[in-house]
C-alpha cells in the first residue's frame, strides 16, 4: 500500500479496569462517564470495548456487513476460515442500524493466531467496495460501536446491562461524516486488543506504510487508532515484547535524553512503531491470562489525560469530569509527559504514569469543602451558558459573592463576565470546573474548591484565580495582570507567554510542582513553584520538569530548591557535549575552552538560553514577594509561619539569557 488514506477526527476517551476483588463494571457506569464529555463528540460515532478475563469460552468475531451484500460477506468469511480449518458454529445478529448489519460469529477450530487470516478477509471486503468489515476478534473481547452519541450507541447494543472486568469508551468528532458506515467509529480492535485514541499522528505515513508494505496489512480504513492497534498487537503478541517495553516504543521518548544502549537499540529497531504528534491513547488487552488497561501520553503532552483510583477501580480519561461522574472521591493524578499507566487485573499497577514518589508526595487523595448552602447556584444538569447567565444575573442584581455547587466539567465558567468590567466580585466554584475557566478575566476573583482543568485564566489581565486543588496544562497563558494561586500542582506549559506592562505585573504561585516548559516564552511577571507538601514532608523533590523558561525574554521564575541547569531551556544532550569534548581533545584544544566552544556551536541567535542562579532571595525580592505570598497563604488557608520558612529557603532563579553572554554550567571536560 503505497499511497495511503488518512482521515482526521477528534474525541473524548475513557478507560476503566477493576482492581483486586472489586465487582464487575457495569456498562451503564461507562456510558454515564463518557457522556459527561459528549461535547467532545458530535454524534457521528461512539463505541465501547469490554474485556472479561474469563472470556466467553468460544472464539468470536464481530462483523459489520452492508445489508444487501450480507450473503456475499458471510460466504467470503466461511470460505477463508474453512481454508485454515476453522468453522462458524453460530451467528448472532447484534443489531441492525440503517443499512448495516452487526453480527457476531462464534468459531471452532481456531488454532493460534488468526490475525493474518482476518487481514486477508478485510482486505478482500475492502477491495469489493467496503461491503463489510471484521471489527473485532478474540475469546475475551466484545466491541460495541456505531454512528451516534455514546448513549444512543449504548442503547442499540444493550451496553448498559453488560458487565466486564475492563472497558474503554470513545465519542468521536470526525471532520468528515462517515455517512451510515460505522467503520471509522472507535474503538479499533483486533485479537483481544482494543484502542481508543485522542489526537492525530504525524507519523501515520510511516506507521501505515510499514503495516502495508512490510507487514502486508492492506485495506486499512485510514484512522490512527487502527494503525496503533495493529502495531501494539504485533509488538506484544507476535514479536513477544513485554507490554511495558512495547509501550515504551510507542510513546517514543526523546532519544536525546537516553543513554541506555539497550533502549536505544530497541527504539531504532522498531522505528516504524514509534508515534509522533499529539496522542493520548487508552488500550485494553487480554494477554497471557491477564487483562491490562494502558494509558499513554505523548512526550509533548499535547492531549489531556487524567488518571484516577478509588480503591476499587482504576480510571483513565480525557477529562477529570468523566471520572468524577461515577467516582466523586477518587484520587486523581495526571500522566507525566511521555508517561504511561499500566494496570494488570491480576498484578495491580505495573506503571503509575509518573514516578511513584512524585505521586505520593504531590498527588494525595484530596478532599475539598462542600457547600450545601441553599443560596448557591446548583450546576447539576446545567450547561455552561445557563451557569454563566445566572452568575451574571446575580451580580447585576447586586451580589458580591456568588457560589456555584455541583460543578462537573462545565467549561468557560466566568468567560461571559469580562466585558462588564466587574470589580469586587467573587465567584466560588465547588466541584470540578472544565476547561477555559476565567479566560480574559479582568477583575473578578474566582475560587475553585476542587481541581481545575486546562487553559485556566488565558489572557487574564486582572483579578484573581485561586485553586485549592490542581490545575492542568497551559495555566495562565498570556497572563498579563492579577494573581493566580494554586495550592496543588499544575501541568505542562504553565505561565506560557506571561507578560507585564505599565503598572501591571502578574504573579503565578504554585504550591506543588509542575511538568515541562514552565514559563515558556515568558516576557514578564513572576512565577513561583514552592513544593509545599515536599517541604513539609522533609523530602527533597524535583519541582519542575524539563525545559524550564525556554525562550524567556523577560520576567522571573523562582523554584524552591536546586534545579539542575540541564533542565533549564533547551539544553544540549549529554551525548552532544561528550562528542564535542572528544573533538576538542583530538584537535588539541585546552580544557578551559569547552564553555566557549559550547556556546559557539550550540547557542541560538534568535532565542538565547535562560540563565539560572541558585541562592537565597535578596532583600528587594523579599520585599516584593512576601506580601504576595502572605496573600497566597490567607487565600489558601495556610499557616503564615510556613511562608516565613519558605522565604528563608534557597531558590533557583531563572531569568532570560542575553545574546552574546555565555551561558554557565560547563566547567571542564567531564
Amino acid at each position, binding site marked *: 500500500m503505497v*499511497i495511503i488514506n488518512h482521515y482526521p477526527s477528534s474525541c473524548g476517551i475513557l478507560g476503566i479496569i477493576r482492581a483486586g476483588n472489586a465487582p464487575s463494571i457495569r456498562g451503564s457506569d461507562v456510558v454515564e462517564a463518557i457522556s459527561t464529555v459528549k461535547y*467532545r463528540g458530535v454524534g457521528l460515532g461512539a463505541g465501547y470495548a469490554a474485556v472479561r478475563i474469563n472470556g466467553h469460552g468460544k472464539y468470536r468475531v464481530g462483523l459489520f456487513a452492508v445489508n444487501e451484500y450480507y450473503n456475499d460477506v458471510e460466504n467470503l468469511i466461511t470460505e477463508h476460515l474453512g481454508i485454515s480449518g476453522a468453522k462458524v458454529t453460530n451467528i448472532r445478529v447484534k443489531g441492525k442500524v440503517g443499512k448495516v448489519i452487526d453480527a457476531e460469529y462464534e468459531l471452532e477450530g481456531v488454532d493460534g493466531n488468526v490475525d493474518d487470516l482476518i487481514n486477508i478477509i478485510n482486505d478482500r471486503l475492502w477491495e469489493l467496495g467496503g461491503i463489510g468489515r471484521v471489527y473485532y476478534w478474540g475469546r475475551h473481547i466484545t466491541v460495541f460501536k456505531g454512528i451516534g452519541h455514546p448513549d444512543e450507541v449504548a442503547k442499540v447494543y444493550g451496553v448498559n446491562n453488560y458487565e466486564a472486568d475492563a472497558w474503554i469508551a470513545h465519542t468521536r468528532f470526525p471532520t468528515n461524516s462517515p455517512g451510515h458506515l460505522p467503520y471509522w467509529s472507535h474503538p479499533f480492535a483486533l485479537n483481544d486488543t482494543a484502542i481508543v485514541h*485522542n489526537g492525530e499522528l504525524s507519523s501515520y505515513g510511516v506507521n501505515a506504510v510499514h503495516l502495508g508494505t512490510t507487514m502486508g496489512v492492506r485495506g486499512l480504513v485510514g484512522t490512527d487508532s487502527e494503525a496503533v492497534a495493529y502495531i501494539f498487537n504485533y509488538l506484544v503478541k507476535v514479536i513477544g515484547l513485554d507490554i511495558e517495553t512495547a509501550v515504551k516504543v510507542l510513546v517514543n521518548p526523546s*532519544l536525546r535524553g537516553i543513554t541506555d544502549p539497550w533502549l536505544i537499540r530497541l527504539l531504532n529497531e522498531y522505528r516504524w512503531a514509534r508515534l509522533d504528534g499529539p496522542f493520548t491513547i487508552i488500550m485494553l488487552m487480554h494477554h497471557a491470562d491477564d487483562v491490562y488497561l494502558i494509558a499513554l501520553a505523548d512526550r509533548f503532552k499535547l492531549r489531556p489525560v487524567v488518571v484516577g483510583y478509588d480503591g476499587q477501580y482504576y480510571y483513565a480519561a480525557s477529562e477529570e469530569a468523566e471520572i468524577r461522574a461515577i467516582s466523586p472521591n477518587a484520587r486523581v493524578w495526571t500522566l507525566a509527559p511521555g508517561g504511561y499507566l499500566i494496570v494488570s487485573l491480576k498484578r495491580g499497577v505495573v506503571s503509575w504514569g509518573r514516578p511513584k514518589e512524585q505521586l505520593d508526595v504531590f498527588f494525595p487523595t484530596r478532599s475539598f469543602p462542600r457547600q450545601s448552602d441553599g443560596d448557591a447556584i446548583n450546576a447539576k444538569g446545567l450547561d455552561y451558558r445557563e451557569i454563566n447567565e445566572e452568575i451574571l444575573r446575580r451580580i447585576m442584581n447586586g451580589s458580591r459573592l456568588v457560589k456555584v455547587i455541583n460543578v462537573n466539567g462545565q467549561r468557560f465558567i466566568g468567560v461571559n463576565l469580562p466585558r462588564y468590567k466587574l470589580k469586587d466580585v467573587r465567584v466560588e466554584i465547588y466541584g470540578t470546573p472544565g476547561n477555559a475557566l476565567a479566560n480574559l478575566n479582568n477583575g473578578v476573583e474566582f475560587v475553585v474548591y476542587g481541581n481545575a482543568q486546562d487553559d485556566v485564566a*488565558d489572557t487574564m489581565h486582572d483579578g484573581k484565580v485561586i485553586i485549592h486543588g490542581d490545575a492542568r496544562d497551559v495555566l495562565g497563558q498570556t497572563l498579563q495582570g492579577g494573581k493566580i494561586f494554586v495550592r496543588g500542582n499544575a501541568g505542562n506549559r504553565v505561565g506560557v507567554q506571561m507578560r507585564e506592562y505599565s503598572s501591571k505585573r502578574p504573579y503565578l504561585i504554585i504550591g506543588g510542582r509542575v511538568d515541562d516548559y514552565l514559563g515558556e516564552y515568558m516576557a514578564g511577571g513572576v512565577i513561583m513553584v514552592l513544593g509545599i507538601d515536599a517541604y513539609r514532608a522533609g523530602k527533597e523533590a524535583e519541582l519542575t520538569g524539563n*525545559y524550564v523558561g525556554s525562550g524567556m525574554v523577560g520576567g522571573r521564575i523562582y523554584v524552591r530548591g536546586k534545579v539542575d541547569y540541564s533542565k533549564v531551556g533547551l539544553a544540549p544532550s549529554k551525548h552532544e557535549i561528550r562528542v*564535542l569534548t572528544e573533538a576538542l581533545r583530538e*584537535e588539541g584544544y585546552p580544557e578551559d575552552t569547552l564553555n566557549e566552544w559550547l556556546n559557539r556551536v550550540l547557542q541560538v541567535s534568535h*532565542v538565547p538560553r535562560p540563565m539560572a542562579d541558585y541562592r537565597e532571595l535578596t532583600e528587594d525580592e523579599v520585599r516584593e514577594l512576601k506580601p504576595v505570598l502572605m496573600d497566597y497563604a490567607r487565600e489558601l488557608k495556610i499557616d503564615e509561619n510556613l511562608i516565613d520558612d519558605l522565604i528563608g529557603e534557597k531558590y533557583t532563579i531563572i531569568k532570560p539569557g542575553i545574546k552574546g553572554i555565555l551561558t554557565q554550567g560547563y566547567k571542564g571536560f567531564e
Partner: protein
Amino acid sequence: MHYVERLDNVRIINSFLKILNKDYTRDFWSSSVVEEIRQMAVSGRPIRIFRRGVRAYRILDRLSFGKDEVVLHGDETYSSDLTTSISGIELAAPIYIGDMSFGSLSGVPNVVVAEVADELNLVAGTGEGGLHPDVAKHRRIFVQWASARFGVDIDVLMRGLGIVIKIGQGAKPGIGGHLPGNKVTGPISMVRRIPIGVDALSPAPHHDIYSIEDLKQRIDALKEATGKPVLVKIAATNYAPYIVVGIARMGADGVIIDGHGAGTGAAPQVVKDNVGIPIELAIASVDKMLRREGLRDGFTVIASGRVSSADDAAKIIALGADAVALGTSVLNSMGCIMARTCHTGNCPAGITSRLADGSVVVDHDLAKRAVINYLKAFQAELGLILDNLGLGNVRELVGRRDLLKGYCITSELAKILDVAGDCTSELPLKNNGSVWTPDYSIYASQLAKKGDVVISSMGSTGPPEVEPPKRLIDWLRLDGAQVTKPSIDPYREDIDMSVYLAGGRLQMSAPLIIRPLTNWSPEQIERAKFVAHLMDIAIDLYGFSNPSGKHSSRTMWDRWIRGIGALVLSLSDLSSMKTIYEYDSPIYIRLPPLLDPIKPIEPYLSQISGIIIDDALSGEVDPEVSVVNADLELRRRGIRYSVDVIIHMTSLRSSGDAVKLAALGADAVEVSSIIGKAVTVDGFEDKLINIINGLRREMAQLLGAAGVYTYYSTIIGNRELLRTLDPRVKELLKVKVAGEW
C-alpha cells in the same frame, strides 16, 4: 500616526518611487504587475479584463473564462452587483483587506487600511500586532486572535465587527508570526507588551489549540466572551479540505485560507518556498467538501494569496470562494516597489519601516488616495467581468467552476479543480539553469554568516510558479500542521533531529554529512573533519585523500583504517573483492541513481550498513526517484531498518531540499554545493560551523511546521507529508497531488 508624530526626523514619502525591474520568473509581483496596480492607484480607473495568463507554471494562470482580453478605456461602468456578505456583515464588494500587523507595517498604512475599509464599506483585518489607537477608531475591522495574542484584551476584542483566530498564514504554514527585534521599537513594544529590541516570535501553535475539539473550545470561549462572529484563518496545506470542514463543524462563521506565495513581513525562506499549496488547489477542494458535508451554506470562505488582479479574484471566486483578501496588491498600490527589505525595517517606500527616530514613513494622504483609487478600479474590473459573463451579481459566480476553461489541466488536477484542458505542448518538468539563483545565493551566504534560520520578506519566489523548476524536488511541498494537530515550536521546544546510522554505530545529532568539493585543500579537509566531529555529524571522504588519522570516528572513507566511521565502496570496488566480512566498520556502497538501487547490491545486503546514492555519478534516473525506490524496495523486503539510504544530490541548495529528500526516503543527506557556494577560504571553519548549524535549525523548523518532533522515526519515507503540484511527479515519486482527497 499619533506615534509617527512623536518621532523625530521622520522623512515622509509623498511620491511614488521607481519600480524595480523584475520579470515574472524573478518575482510573482513583476514590474509589469506592479506597474499596472500603480496605474490604477493613480487614475482610479480599470485597465483591462480577461488578462491572458503568462506564468506557465502557475495553475491559476492556466485557467480562464474562455474570453479574449478586453482593453478598457477606463470610463466604462458596470451594472452587476458586487455586494457580499461575510458572516452576516454586508460588504460593498467581495474584498477583505488582508491582515497586516501594526509592527510589520509602519503605522500609517495600518490606519489607511482601516479608513479605507470604512469609506468603501469593506472589512480590514488588523493582523497580529494589536490595535493601533488610530485604527481602533474605525468600525469595519476584524481583530486577530493569534498564538501570541499580542495587544489583545476584552476591549480590543469588542472593537471590531468580528474576530479572526489566526492559526496559519500562506507564507509560513505551521510557524507563528515574526517581528524581527530591530523593528520592536518603543511604540510597538507598548502595544504588544514585549521588551524592546527582542524578536517577537509568536509560538508556532496556539498552545491551547492542539486538536480540532480544542479549536471548538476556543471558538466557543470567544463567542461566550464577546458574542461576535468568529472566523479562522489557515494556510493552504495538504489537509486543507478536512481542516476547513472541521472548522465549519466546530461552529466558526467562516474561514480565511491563505495560499502559497502569500506575503509576509518576515518568514524563514525555506518555509516560504517549501511548505503549503497554491490557493487555487485548496479552494476547489474546500468548496466541494463543504458542500458534500452540507456545511457550505452560511459559512464564508475567503481566499487569499497572490490575488494580483480582478481576473485572479474572479477565477478564485469561480473555483469556490465567497470573497478574496488583498494584501500585497494593496501595498503595491500605496507605493511598494518590492524591495523585499521589510524584515530589516528599511523600507524605501516607508510602508514596512521600523518605527523609530529618523524613519521613513509613507504620506498618509498619498497612501489613502492611492488605495481608494486602486480598490475602485479593481471593483470596476470585477464588475465588468461579471457583466461580460452575463452574471447579475457576484454571488452567482461562487463555485461556478463550469465557467472556467483550463490549459494543460489534466488527470488529478482536473479532478481537483473540476476544470480540464489539454496541453498543446507539454510543460517541461525540468528546465535548464543553475539552482543558484540570486535569491538562493543570498540565502547561502546568509546561512554561512548567521548560523541560524535565514529570514526574508514578502511572498515566495520559489519554484515551480515563479522560479522555473529545474528538478523533480522543485515540484514538492511539505505539509504544515494546523488545527487537527499542532505544529511544534522549534525555537523553544525540543525537536529531536538525531539519527542512528549503521545500526547505531554512527550516531549523529543531525542527518547531515559533509561532502568536500574537489577543489578543497588538505588543510580545508582537515578543518572540515574537525567541524564534523565537533558538531556530531560525519564527513564522506570517498575519493579524497585523508590527510591525518584525526577524527576518524566521524570519517567515511574508501580505505579502511582502525576506528574509521565507515568504509565506502563503489560497485566496481565490490566486484573485485572476495568478501567484505573482514572489516570491523560499517560499510556503505556508493551507487549512481538507479531505477532499482537494491538489485545490484542484493548479494551484499546482509553485510552492509547502507547505500549512498550519488548523482555526481551518472545514473539512469533522477536522484529523487532512486531514493523513493530504494526506500520502497527495502520496505518490501522487510529490511528497511537495517539498510540506511543516504543521498548526495549535488544540486541540494537548502534545508528544504534536505527535508524533502528525507520525506522521500533518505535517512541522511550529504551536502557539498551549498558549502561550496557560501564558504570561502577566509573564515572557512567558522562559516562551515554556521552552515551546518543553520541547516540543522532550519530542518527543525520544517519538521516543527509539519507537526513532527522526531526526525528519525517520523520523517524518513513519510511521503504522506509531501504533495506535488504535477500529476506526472505523483507517478514517479509516489506522492499525492496537492488538493487531492
